[in-house]
């Protein structure tokens, strides 16, 4: 098994080096300094800014610096006096408070839906659920978010006379701040993702159902419930865990839309604001951190996979 883990670790090193290279190159195709200063800037200003950013150094040294500390100490262009690292530390929590509950809720609902659908495979309930998933997947995310905010924040407060969910913004004051600011985005996020996930989990479970050991279990005379929960779900959980682990880093980015719309100062919104404002140090730092998070979860997934699936250990 350790051989497997080490092999995976080694493979991720060039991948990580590659990501940083791609990001650095992509951000330098259009000179970021000219983009920032505008066409009217003087050569002097330009040189000064380049010097300050360390863009004058040889490429390989810039690369090394980014690799070593993500350039977290750099000052943001749009927010003078704030470093990339400080901005990052601030942006992590709002993202966390939305992404994690949404992930848990989505996984639970999707898994339950998938189990029910697979249990009643081919019958009306299964068809209804899966048709609902396809229909739901055919509507743009953006529409869910817009309508979710309209009905959840505007209309609901009109009907009840109280502002239950905030229209936008984020604050940690008060005892119910999470429900007030985060619950509605979490619910919308769950609705968005649950169709995709339940289809995926159902496919996994159905595949598991056709396996020989399940047929044996049925032949032994086990009840359908016991077969489903003990023989099918346990094996399917391997795929579920992998799926959840892989989606983890994407979740932070997946919040981008919701964070932008609900004006929540998380990682996604910070990145988009930086891109729209041509804030070069922020874009570079954030992307590098996103990639690093991805690599780490990737390795963790592989290790976890090796732990739960004996076939991996043997190969």
């Amino acid at each position, binding site marked *: 098994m350790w051989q497997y883990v080490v092999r995976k670790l080694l*493979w991720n090193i*060039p*991948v*990580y080096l*590659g*990501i940083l290279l*791609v*990001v650095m190159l*992509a*951000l330098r*195709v*259009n000179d970021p300094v*000219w*983009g920032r200063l505008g066409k009217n800037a003087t050569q002097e200003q330009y040189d000064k800014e380049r010097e300050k950013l360390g863009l004058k150094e040889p490429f390989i040294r810039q690369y090394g610096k980014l690799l070593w500390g993500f350039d977290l100490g750099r000052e943001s262009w749009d927010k003078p006096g704030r470093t990339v690292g400080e901005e990052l530390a601030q942006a992590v929590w709002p993202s966390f408070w939305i992404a994690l509950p949404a992930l848990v809720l989505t996984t639970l609902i999707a898994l339950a839906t998938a189990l029910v659908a697979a249990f009643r495979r081919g019958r009306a309930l299964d068809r209804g659920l899966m048709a609902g998933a*396809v*229909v739901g*997947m*055919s*509507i*743009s*995310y*953006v*529409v869910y978010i*817009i*309508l979710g905010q*309209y009905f959840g924040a*505007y209309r609901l407060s009109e009907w009840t006379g109280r502002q239950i969910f905030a229209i936008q913004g984020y604050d940690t004051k008060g005892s119910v701040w999470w429900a007030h600011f985060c619950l509605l985005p979490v619910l919308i996020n769950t609705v968005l993702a649950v169709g995709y996930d339940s289809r995926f989990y*159902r*496919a996994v479970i*159905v*595949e598991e159902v056709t396996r020989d050991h399940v047929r044996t279990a049925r032949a032994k005379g086990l009840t359908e419930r016991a077969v489903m929960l003990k023989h099918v779900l346990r094996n399917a959980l391997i795929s579920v865990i992998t799926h959840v682990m892989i989606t983890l*880093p*994407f979740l*932070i*980015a*997946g919040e*981008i*839309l919701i964070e*932008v*719309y609900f004006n929540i100062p998380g990682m996604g919104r910070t*990145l*988009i604001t930086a*891109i*729209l404002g*041509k804030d070069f140090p922020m*874009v570079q730092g*954030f*992307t590098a951190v*996103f*990639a690093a998070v*991805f*690599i780490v979860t*990737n390795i963790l997934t592989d290790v976890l996979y090796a732990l739960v699936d004996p076939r991996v250990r043997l190969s």
Partner: protein
Amino acid sequence: MLLSRSFRKFRKSKLALAAAAGIALYLAIGIGIFGGLVTREEAFERVGPDSVPGFGAEQKPEKRFGDVDFEMTLVERALKRKDPERALEETMLGHRRPAAVPVEELRKRLDAAFEIYDELEESKDLNREPELWPKLAELETAAARLWQPLEGWDTFSQHTKLVLGTDRQGRSILLRAVYAIKIALQVGVIVGISAVLFGTALGAAAAFYGGWVDIVVQWLYSTLSSVPYLVLLSVLVFMFQGSAVEQSLMPLYAAFGLTFWIGPCRVVRGEVLKIKQLDYVHAATALGQRRWRILLKHVIPNVSHLMLVQFSLLFISAIKAEVVLTFLGLGVKDEPSWGIMISQAKQEVVNGFFWQIGAATAAMFGLVLAFNIFTDALQDALDPKHIA
């Protein structure tokens, strides 16, 4: 025919056939737009007052008053110009033109309308003063006399343009939603085809030749898929900011093209790894055929079904990603796309105006749903491993 058995299986599913018909309809409209069915100018043209609801739905008196005000102002502005005749000739609201009467007569009619207008203007909230409503109807009749009554085809055309109402700039929602089909098909087809071709080429080469080619390709797609794709797309769009092509669809294509090939590449690589071991490939090698010929003649045709499935998956993703990127201000800039419409609609929804978001969502829903069903049926028919 290679696919004939699968084709029969596909044909048996009525739902799949309906979906295929739906896609064909969208395609026909898209081709029609390329042929000039709806032009870009028409999609930008002002056809009436702003935020008119669809199907001639009842409007609040306050809004009706605003609309009359708008129509009167258009004529008034023309009359105040140095050369009123020419200004009037240039004034148009969709198919409607100012009444073809002498300028003096038009002035008289405008003054008559303004007399009623002034009485109504004193009211604070017309919605709450039903006694003024007959007056409002009177004003509407008076204002209508400023405009030439529509005839024949123009009537039909104008009604069609207003059937789903107008957006905040008074542009026809129907025309914009229909014109957006072209943009969607353009993005979906270009991105889908280029990504599938590129991905297949790399994936097949990687699996077939193995060795360092395989390592490089694997490294390439592991690298690109290690950045969440929305982040990667954003960075790529950032790359194009301020360049000459920023306003065009080029950044969008480049960003999608660079990220979307990963899916087909993985799938094709896996399949070719298996095909490579099959007897007929060994036989071809034993016959002394060249490697690249075997790849082109014997291997690629056997992954063509996967290419088809991947294309339709990517088509859906591209259309949906367009909306998301446009919403974030990184996508389509100056074409009427569904993304633009939905983004604009966020202001309107707050005021309870759902026509624009509804039209764009419905148009997109039809296409994406048809493609979703179509893809599922394709996978059922072509991919033995797919679970239905």
